[in-house]
């Protein structure tokens, strides 16, 4: 998996909010990514989009700046950095529209093998939470860093 990403990203000191400029055919557009704690304090909602006049994230706007893959790869990069800082946080994300959710499903499905090395990838479906697999109809993604457990050998001195 090798996609271009935006390399200069602004961040809060608590690593909860990020921003970068998308540079494309319609100019420089400020993008913001946020991780917000949900009612379940183990789960953080990932939202991203353009910054509107109220300084909020507009995730319905169609920017059409001609660099969709670069923006998505940058958001994926941010999620990777975030989950390195907070490996115990579950990240919930979904598209603001069915089309966007389908796009994310395809992107994750396409890179499932590589992503699965780093993440547990689950899906919220109508009946609950299941392991994500390609072509599964889902309502949202739920991911978390894989917890690496080290096995220690106990040495006994005789």
């Amino acid at each position, binding site marked *: *998996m*090798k*996609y271009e*990403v*935006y*390399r*200069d*990203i*602004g*961040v*809060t*000191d*608590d690593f*909860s*909010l*990020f*921003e970068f400029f998308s540079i494309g055919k319609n100019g420089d557009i400020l993008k*913001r990514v*946020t991780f*917000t704690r*949900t*009612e*379940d304090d*183990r*789960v953080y*909602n990932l*939202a991203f*989009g353009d910054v509107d006049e109220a*300084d*909020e*994230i507009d*995730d319905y706007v169609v920017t059409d700046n001609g660099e969709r893959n670069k923006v998505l790869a940058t958001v994926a*990069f941010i999620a*990777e*950095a975030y989950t*390195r800082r907070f490996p115990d946080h*579950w990240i*919930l994300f*979904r598209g*603001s529209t069915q089309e966007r959710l389908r796009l994310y499903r395809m992107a994750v499905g396409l890179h499932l093998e*590589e*992503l699965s*090395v*780093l993440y*547990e990838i*689950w899906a*919220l479906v109508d*009946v*609950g*939470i299941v392991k994500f697999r390609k072509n599964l109809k889902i*309502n*949202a993604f*739920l991911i978390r860093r894989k917890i690496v457990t080290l096995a220690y050998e106990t040495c006994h001195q005789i």
Partner: protein
Amino acid sequence: MKRVTKYKSEITGTEVTFTVSEKLNKLKGKVLAPKKLAEANELLRKLKTPLPK
């Protein structure tokens, strides 16, 4: 002085610079995508199974 962190992707090896922004720091704690958060909470409330262990 700028507070900068370099991060190298474990998946792609790409390196990115994160710079702490005082402008962004002022937005800490504000819910910037309230509708999205409400939808996430709604999905979690409807869950019939617990989070994976």
